[in-house]
Structures are given as C-alpha cells and as structure tokens.
C-alpha cells in the first residue's frame, strides 16, 4: 500500500514536471537549444568530458553563478544548498559530510574524495578532508563543482566511498584582471582576499595564470551551553573541575563560550598553464577551537591546527589520433596538531592538575600518475583508458600528555608513528557507444598497499536513451577506504594500537532516470548499497583494559574506571533509498528554480544487533528560487536546505532517553548584483536563519547518563546571521 502510494507520488511529480516543461517549451522556440546549453558537462565520473546525464554515476555540477547568487561561502554550503543526495553536518569542530543517508561520524571526512582541479586534497595522515572554512579553496575562484555520488574507487582509489567532489577553478579568461574581496558575517568573521587572472604567450604557446590569496578570521558566535553536572569525581571524592583555574563545582557550561569558538585560515591557490602543461599550487593553514568536547569548558587551547601544501604538474600529449597520453606528478605535505585540555580526575590523573593532551602528526606523499587513452576507431565510440599511479608516502606522529601549567610530562609519551612506504595502483576503463542510444562502461582498479592484500574495485555501467531527451542508466560500483596509518599503527595515551585492521568496502547498485524538456531537468533514482568492515573507535571493556595494561599496549598506569579505545572493524551498513531532483529556468533565465529530495534508510549492523545510523538524516534535500532581474538590477534568491530528525551521535543506549535532533531547515535570502554607479564593484548580502536551535551532536563532559545528569545536551546552533560582501575588479 505504502509502495503503491510512493509510486503514484513519483508518477504525479513526473507528470507535473512534464506539464510545466511542455507549457514552457511551447512558449519559447529556443527551449531545445536552452536544454542543450543547460546540460552539465562533467569529466570526473570517467576521466572523460561527457554529458552528466550519460556519465556512469549520478553526476551534478554546481555553477559559479549559483554559488554567488545563493550566497554560498564554503564547499559545505554549496553541497547543502545546491547538490543532490549529499549533506553536511556541523559539529562545531570542522563539520562532517555524508551521502544518501549514511554519515560516519568522527571520520574526518575520509569517506569522500575531495579534489581541486583533479588533485586529491584528502590528507596523507588520516585521509581526511575539510569542506568548511578551512578548505583553502577561495569561493570566487571556483568555476564549478562536480559531484559524483556513489562509490568511485574505480578510477580514484581509496576514500571515494560516498563519492567524489572535484572543484574546478576558473580559467584566466573568466577571472581576468585583479579582484579584491571583503566579506563579513557580522560581526563574527572577516574574509579578505585578492585574486588575479591573466593570459600571455610564452615561447609561442598560449599561457594563463589564475591565483587568489585569502585570509579568514572568525571569533564567535558566543553560543550558550547549558550547565551539566559531572557529579563527584571518583579520584578526589569531590565535585570535579571543569576549567583549569575553576573551583571544584562539578559544573560544566551554564555560560556562553566566548573563547573556544574561533577559526583562522590563511590560504593561497595558484594555477599556471602553458600549452598542454599545467602547474597547480595550493597551501592553507586552518586553526579552530573545539568547544564541544568532554574536557574543560570553553578552553581556548582545545582545538586543531592543520597545515596543507600541495604541488601538482600535469602534461598531456596527443600522440596520434589513436593515443592520448598524460602524466601527472604531485606532492602533498600535511601537518596536524590537536590539543585537548581537561582537569577532571577521570580524564587527568587525580584531578589535581590540568592535562594538555597533544597529538601531532606530519605526513607527505609524492607520486606520479600515467594515463593513456586509446580511441580505437578514432571516433570516440570505443575508448580504453589505462592508468597507473605510484605514490611514496611518509608519516610521523607523537602523542604526549603534559601538565598545562608546568609543562611536565604526566604519562610516558606513546611511541607514535614513523613509517614510510610505497603504494601502487593500476586501472583500466572501457567505454563503448554501441549505437546512438546505448553506452556501456566497465572498469576496474587494483590498489596495492603493503599493509593489506591488494584491493580490486570494479564498476560497470550502462546508459540508454529510450526516448527523446530521456536517459536511463544503471550501474554497479564499488569503493574502498584504506584505514589511515593513524588508525592501523598509531597509539596514544588513551588509544591502543589496532590489530588486523582491514580496508572498508562498499558496493552499490544504482538506477537513475533523467529527463529534460528545454531547460528543465528531472532526475529520479534509486540505490542499494552494502558497506562492510567499517572502522570505528571502539571503547574497550574493563577486562580488555586490564589485558591491554598487562600486555604493555598502553603506558597509562592502571586506574579503575579508566577508558581506553581501539580502532576496529566493528560494523556493516545496509543502505537503500530514492533520490530525486529537478531544476530549470523560465523566461530566458529570469526565473531559476531547483529542488532535490533524498529518502534513505541506513541500518548499522554490529554483531547480531541492528541500529539506525546516528547523525545521518533519513530524509533531506534543498530547494531554491532566484529572480534575475537584469544587468542593472539585483538578483534576489532564496535557498533552503532541510534535514529530517535524526538520532544524535551518542544514541545507542548511553542515555536513559536516546537523544534525537529535531528536523532542521535553514533559509538563506541573498541579494546580489553590481553596484549602481560603479560597475567594477559588486556586492552580495545574505540573511541566514535556522529553524531548529540544536544539532545532532552530544556536547559536554557527560557522554552517558549519570545520576546528576541523566539527559544529553545537543550542540547549539547559530540561528541568525547577516553577511555582507563586496568585490572590486579592475
């Protein structure tokens, strides 16, 4: 019955879409041409430029115009307000990302492969990525963002489990001259940037340069955290301390966090092209506080500092009409330092001093990827891509615990990492346009990592145009994530080293139907995914803790009640659902609209038990409308994204009542355009409002019910914010 209603609903949506589109098509002779011009061209799904509708995965492309008109400031916002089937979740600690109802909290973004101009930015230490203000990718320099949803390791290897994001930066002709930008989310943040683009001729070859330098600083918002009572500290027999110089009250929060909500991020990006050679340079530093943890309340030293620098050089040669060869050399350096300040006895010895847990890591990789493309019949009908990637990488880390006042080491430092190795990969892909309406694609990649057995990730896909302007496509795709060195080989004061950790794997079957009429595009799709060997930080039982201490797996002296953890392959996830979206324009681009909706079920299986995956919404999407009034008049746009209610991250029986986050809807009204009397000056003004005042993360020191604090507190949300931005081009 439910199924019948669902099918009827989809048929109704499709019917309405056709009615609107056909009426619009009749009114405008050029609608078919507009349709062709509105079709996204993507190149990330199969490493070949192709229409998004025939690409072998659910593919979307977010445009620079949309980023500007809908007031988008970060990659995370672009995903939330504009993309299909992907959403982010703000944990006040850099944010997290998930897709199609799966979000693996605490993964540092390592299940999404993020690339800028085709170069991976996932860090070499943890495989993590940042999509928020610390991403180091200036929003004005983005030409478009390609989002490929679904497993994508077939051409890209580890991390592409949710899919991949490829940020394509602007060519010099689209960013000509010098640009100066200032933008502020009043009164808490300021972003100042300067960029430039120019073309030139050197040695008889056409060249171009685009670059942007940016500095972002944020102080606040001063969010209010409810008071939590941590009760009597079992080590002191008195209420615990929750600040380094506070009294033994056992109280945490009950005030605005004025010191721990901050961020700072200078960054730079440069792209230089000469003929068929391209140089890509990117560097960023990202410092941010972490106000939500279990340590001291509002301590400014609890937080993370990340430094990233990467260089890439790409050269392509058309050897003949048969063969095209490209080589890509790349190197990435990454450094991370995280600090966690705690004074309670359960976290810091005896509750008499304040501990500063400092984990530091450095990593780099250097690699070379060679790729050949064989167009056997010289007509793009039967193309083979063969590639190989070799990468040398090194990681080093330290972990120590010091008295924050004296600097004295409180525990013997953990051994840390000091490893280097070489990983190799080879991939092949065959595309075959059998006849005009049918296109097949198949491929596989083998990744060899000395820590694991080789991993093979195949993909097969087919697309078919059963009627004019309609594309039906189906695919079977796989992906994996090699656990990071930090997960496999590292230990800290409170985490023992993992044993026999295996790569995470996902396989997925996707069916998508795309239909466009004029400039209106409709997507309806379904998917079924199976995730295996998911790696999680598992708490050790009391017996396991005793064994770990006895066997020398930790330097922490035995203390009753002490908590230790270990990375383990703990669970599998079954995930299935539907996604739909439609977008288009009316009256030659005067009115623009878009809407996406994803409904997905994700069940996590651990042993014999099955639970709903926390933090991940089962229903989410976005909607947007814009009125483009004309050259001299502003563009008015309203965008919203919504998340259904979802269990909080600690909702597996830790509390008497499992904490649940309410449905969230975020609205953004943006006014943008050129200044009336100064053409070179453009502006945008945004007003943002979030309906719900709490997110999906348990904050504060109480992570399970205790007599003095039986309920959980969820992270507060910055609900209302106004942002103003100016850009001057000369």
């Amino acid at each position, binding site marked *: 019955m439910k199924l019948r209603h669902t099918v009827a609903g989809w048929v109704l949506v499709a019917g309405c879409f056709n009615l609107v589109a056909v009426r619009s098509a009749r009114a*405008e*002779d*050029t609608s*078919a*041409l*507009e349709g*062709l*011009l*509105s*079709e*996204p*061209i*993507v190149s990330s799904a199969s490493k*070949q*430029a*192709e*229409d998004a509708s025939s690409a072998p995965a659910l593919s979307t*492309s*977010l*445009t*620079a*115009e*949309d980023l500007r008109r809908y007031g988008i400031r970060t990659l995370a916002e672009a995903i939330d307000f504009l993309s299909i089937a992907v959403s982010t979740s703000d944990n006040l600690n850099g944010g997290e990302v998930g897709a199609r109802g799966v979000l693996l909290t605490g993964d540092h973004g390592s299940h999404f492969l993020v690339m800028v101009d085709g170069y991976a930015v996932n860090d070499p230490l943890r495989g993590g990525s940042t999509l928020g203000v610390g991403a180091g990718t200036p929003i004005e320099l983005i*030409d*478009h963002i*390609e989002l490929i949803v679904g497993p994508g390791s077939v051409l890209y290897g580890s991390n592409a489990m949710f899919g991949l994001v490829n940020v*394509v930066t602007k060519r010099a*002709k*689209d960013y000509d001259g010098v640009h100066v930008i200032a933008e502020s989310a009043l009164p808490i943040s300021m972003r100042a940037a300067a960029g430039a683009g120019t073309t030139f001729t050197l040695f008889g*070859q*056409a060249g171009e340069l685009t670059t942007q330098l940016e500095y972002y600083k944020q102080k606040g918002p001063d969010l209010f955290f409810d008071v939590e009572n941590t009760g009597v500290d079992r080590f002191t027999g008195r209420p615990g301390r929750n600040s380094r110089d506070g009294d033994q009250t056992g109280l945490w929060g009950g005030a605005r966090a004025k010191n721990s909500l901050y961020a700072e991020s200078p960054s730079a990006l440069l792209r230089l092209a000469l*003929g*068929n050679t391209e140089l890509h340079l990117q560097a960023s530093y990202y410092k941010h506080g972490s106000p939500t943890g279990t340590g001291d309340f509002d301590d400014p030293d609890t937080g993370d500092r990340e430094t990233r620098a990467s260089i890439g050089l790409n*050269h*392509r*040669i*058309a*050897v*003949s*009409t048969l063969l*095209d060869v490209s*080589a890509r*050399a790349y190197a990435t350096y990454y450094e991370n330092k995280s600090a966690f300040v705690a004074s309670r006895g359960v976290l810091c010895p005896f509750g008499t001093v304040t501990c500063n847990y400092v984990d530091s890591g450095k990593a780099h990789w250097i690699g*070379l990827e*060679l790729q050949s493309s064989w*167009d056997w*019949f*010289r*007509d*793009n*009908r039967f193309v083979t891509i063969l590639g190989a990637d*070799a990468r*040398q990488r090194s990681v080093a880390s330290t972990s120590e615990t010091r008295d924050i006042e004296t600097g004295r080491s409180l525990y013997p430092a953990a051994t840390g990492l000091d490893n*280097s*190795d*070489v990983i190799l990969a080879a991939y092949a892909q065959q595309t075959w346009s059998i006849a*005009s309406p049918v296109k097949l694609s198949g491929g596989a990649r083998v990744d060899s990592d000395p820590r694991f057995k080789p991993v093979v990730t195949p993909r097969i896909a087919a697309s078919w145009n059963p009627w004019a302007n309609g594309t039906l496509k189906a695919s079977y795709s796989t992906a994996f994530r090699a656990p990071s060195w930090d997960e496999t080989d590292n230990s800290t004061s409170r985490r023992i080293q993992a044993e026999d950790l295996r790569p995470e794997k996902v396989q997925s079957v996707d069916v998508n139907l795309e239909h466009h009429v004029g400039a209106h595009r409709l997507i309806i799709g379904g998917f079924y995914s199976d995730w295996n060997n998911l790696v999680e930080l598992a708490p050790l039982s009391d017996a396991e803790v005793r064994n770990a201490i006895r066997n020398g797996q930790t330097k922490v002296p035995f203390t009753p009640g002490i908590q230790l953890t270990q990375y383990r392959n703990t669970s599998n996830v079954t995930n299935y659902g539907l996604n739909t979206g439609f977008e288009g324009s009316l009256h*030659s681009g005067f009115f623009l609209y878009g809407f996406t909706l994803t409904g997905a079920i994700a069940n996590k299986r651990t042993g014999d038990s099955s639970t709903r995956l926390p933090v991940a919404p089962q229903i989410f999407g976005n909607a947007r409308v814009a009125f483009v009034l004309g050259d001299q008049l502003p563009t008015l746009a309203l965008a919203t994204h919504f998340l259904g209610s979802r269990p909080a991250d600690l909702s597996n029986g830790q509390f008497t009542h499992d904490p649940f986050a309410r449905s969230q809807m975020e609205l953004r009204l943006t006014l943008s355009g050129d200044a009336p009397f100064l053409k070179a000056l453009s502006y945008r003004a945004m007003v943002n409002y979030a309906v719900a005042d709490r997110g999906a993360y348990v904050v504060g020191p109480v992570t399970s019910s205790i007599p003095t604090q039986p309920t959980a507190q969820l992270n507060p949300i910055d609900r209302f914010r106004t942002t103003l931005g100016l850009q001057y081009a000369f």
Partner: protein
Amino acid sequence: MRSSRTLQLLKHVVCVTALALSLSSPGSAQSMPVPTGAQAELVAKLAGFDRNFAARAGNKAVIILAAVPGDADSMSAALEMKAAFARLPTVGNLPHEELVVTQANPSSLADLVRTKHAAIVYLGPGFEKQIPAIRDALSSLDVLSVGAIPSYVPAGIVLGFDLVSGRPKLLIHVVQARKQKVAFPASVLSLMKVYP
C-alpha cells in the same frame, strides 16, 4: 631495505617520464572545452535558426571538418565530429554529409568551401595562428564557420563553444556573421556571448 629500493625505482620512473614528456613534440596548444558530441548537437540545432541556412545548403548540408596536417589533436577532433554528426539524422532540418580535410592553407580552404558548396566549415584545434587569414578568406563566402576553440571567435570565426561553469556556452562574432550571411534571430543571440 625493500622500501628504499622501491623508492629508488620510483625516482627513476619519475625522471624517465619527465624526460620523455619534455622531449615529445607538443600537440595543439589549446584543447576543446566542450565534447564533440555536444558541439555537433548544438551546431545541428543552431543551423535550423540561421535564416539563410536552407538556401545556402540546398537539398543537403555539406559540412567540411578541417584539421591541421600533422596535428593529432586536430585530426581527432575532426574525426570525432564526423562520428558525432553521423549520429544525428539532420543538421538544420536537412540531411547532411561530412567531409574531413587536412588543410592549413586558408585560400585552399576557401576554394574547397566554394567548390563543395559547403554550408558549414568546422575548424579543429591547432588553427590559432591562421585564424585571421581564414577569416579574411571566408569573408566573401556564404558559409557558417565554426571553431572548436573559444579563442577562434574573437579572432573572426563566426561561431564557437566555451565551457563556463561546467555548461556549454555559445560564442558568436556578429560582424563576421553578417559578412558570411549568417543570421540568427535575437532570441538565439540572447543565449550567446556576442563579440562585436
């Protein structure tokens, strides 16, 4: 030990590859931003809006696909365009025939357009330096010239393609269009980036 040997090997591979790439002859300086399939569909659709296309083409639209001799990129583009047009039943609502030629001489190209009664001449990558001469040679002819590279249009090719924000964008040189008797209605011009 094994790791250091592998590292050494990797360094050798990097050096050899860098050397091989630096010694290889460069292809066309600029590559096509829009795939040939999309270009062919756009040309086929646009030709129908050209008020003089039917008179120019007669019963069948002849399309010359020109490539630079010895330029693999250029030849690939011409061959791919031929295959892409072959998948389309009509171009400008007319049956069509494609002719791939390798031609670097502008006046010879103009002669070929004249003798074959070509309705469309398509220029693949690699013609950057000859575009002004080709523009002059085609100026007195009734033909729609189409360029694979965006920079061809400001230099005098009537129609071209670019990729802006991941979507195809049409470019038109209106003065040259008038000279070559190509006439699009205002509703189509409003979808294009217009070069005066």
